[in-house]
């Protein structure tokens, strides 16, 4: 078991980061290297400055808001939740004064952000099981949602498990020690493998690793491509 924990918490994390970085660079490089064809016309009427509206389209999803409010709400909650969780994870690496502009306890959201993300993911999954989205979906769509769901379930529950069941032996200090050791390339997993709920951290990191590795080879690249796409539409 100790070996398995080590493999997931150390080499697999490095592998995931390498695959993510190189894969994303490769995908963007492939785009930049592709020949450029005369662009088809934008969608009229045009609004200026086009780039600003394109950024607005990418971040605020106005077309979804207009045509499917429920989906928009779930997407907004999900993406904002993800952002909050990413920032929260940064605080697990080190203290960032800027992130404490609004003073808050670590971990940000006390598990409620994670819960909101989980509910959104369940909604997305259910949506995929109903026509016509069902017929449009491919295995990749389900797999990504399941990976997200497991990552979030293990992650959010870990925080609650710590507070509810008094597993105080593993907390922010241990996470920080582990993550900063990874960054310093001197991995030390001692503090995060001895607690009763360590298996949850290992599960969380295992699924997160898979998700991170999948990023460059799946539709998750929309997170980057959406800006260019929306700019084309805006002209």
């Amino acid at each position, binding site marked *: 078991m100790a070996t398995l924990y080590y493999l997931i918490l150390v080499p697999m994390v490095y592998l995931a980061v390498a695959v993510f970085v190189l894969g994303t660079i490769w*995908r963007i490089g*492939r*785009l*930049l290297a*592709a*020949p*450029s*064809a*005369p*662009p*088809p*016309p934008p*969608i*009229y*009427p*045009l609004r200026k400055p086009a780039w600003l509206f394109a950024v607005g*389209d990418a971040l605020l*999803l106005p*077309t*979804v808001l207009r*045509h*499917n409010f429920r*989906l928009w709400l779930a997407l907004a909650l999900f993406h904002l939740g993800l952002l909050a969780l990413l920032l929260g994870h940064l605080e697990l690496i080190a203290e960032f004064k800027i992130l404490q502009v609004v003073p808050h306890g670590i971990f940000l959201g006390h598990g409620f952000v994670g819960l909101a993300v989980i509910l959104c993911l369940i909604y997305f999954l259910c*949506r995929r099981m109903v*026509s*016509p*989205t069902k*017929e*449009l*979906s*491919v*295995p*990749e*769509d389900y*797999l990504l949602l399941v990976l997200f769901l497991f990552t979030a379930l293990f992650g959010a529950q870990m925080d609650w498990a710590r507070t509810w069941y008094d597993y105080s032996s593993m907390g922010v200090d241990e996470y920080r020690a582990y993550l900063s050791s990874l960054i310093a390339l001197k991995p030390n997993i001692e503090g995060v493998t001895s607690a009763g709920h360590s298996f949850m951290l290992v599960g969380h990191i295992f699924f997160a690793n898979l998700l991170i590795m999948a990023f460059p*080879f*799946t*539709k998750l*690249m*929309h997170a980057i*491509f*959406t800006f*260019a*796409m*929306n700019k*084309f*539409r*805006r002209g």
Partner: protein
Amino acid sequence: MEAQLKNDLVNVFKSKLSSQMLLNLDTCSRCGLCTEACHAYASIPLVKYAPAYRAEVVRRIYKRSFTAQGKFAPVMGEAKEITDAALMELKEAAFSCTGCRRCMVYCPFGIDTQQIMSIAKLLLVAAQAEPETLSMLADMSVSKGENIDAFKEGFLSGIKRLEDQMIQTWRDEAGEDPIPTDVVGADLLYVALAGAHSIIPSARIFNAAGEKWSLSFFEAVNFGAFVGDPTKTKLILDRIVNEAKRLRVKEVCICECGTAVRVAKQLKGAPFKVVSLTEVHARYIRQGRIRLKKLPGSYTYHDPCQIARNGGVYDEPRYILSHLVNDFREMSPDPKYNWCCGGGGGLVAMGDETLDFRMQSAKVKADQVRGSGADVVVTACENCHTQLSDLNKHYGLGKEVRFLSSLVADALLPEPQEARG
């Protein structure tokens, strides 16, 4: 399918992979938001008519041949080889899409299904599986460009007949040369469609406005674009470009044909400006070069997708109609969301072959036209006009379908002489 053909088709696919096309293929999250946007799906709720599903038909082949996921884990994205069955699917997807790009307005990323369908069309052309009618029409247009001298005499005698008609109807206004052709140094080259309806009303308006114009020897419609063959599209367009350069015109005015307007407006670096007939008519009114009387009745306007959503000509037709009629009723609260008529993308050009599908897939359009409550449906595109007339008959809408230019010609008042240059 033979291995050689499969290989050739993969190479043809590759030739379409520009950076923008890669983005179109790589970004879809299959959220399904575009589903409701397509008139075909809204009228016939079968998933094969959902824009994202059509795109997936192409995307599956793309994944198999060009992506790491498709090569190592094809099951994840349901990646597929090109096969005869896949070609059939491509044909159904591409030739049930009118290229209206309404789905693009709904999509959170703005994925261009029409562009993705252009891959399907090109693969069909390469496999010689494209609709024969369109291919034949495109070939005829190309050969006309190559042998203009053989066509010239017939064309000019046709024009002479039209001139006689004009002189009979508008003796005073027709002038000495009612339909000028081959005028070197003309300000405007008018590219019409074959048929009196596309030439006579426009000629009357050009003459009334005192325009120094010349009628093109070539028809505007680009069957190369309908069939999805970029080489033929260019050859057909080049005929007009070369004529415009030879005559040294300042402006090329494309008649009421949405696809022709779109294709010509995409020209880059030409020594002339490309405008649609509607834009020219709006300009004449604005400059006081023509005056119009008001026509009785209630009117609505169908925005041709290629001219409005994809060409930006929204205000001009409404400006013209404000000078033509007192009772104008918008068809859609936001013209950007106007339903496609269901006849574009070559469907109307395929005639009776597609009639059944066109009527079924445009039920939402028929409902929209009926809902407008207007007596007359006006439009500025030949395809839309034909399709709306067919819908009118099929659904018993009881409307009159008119070209905007013909209304303008009917409403012309004797021109203010002082405004003529």
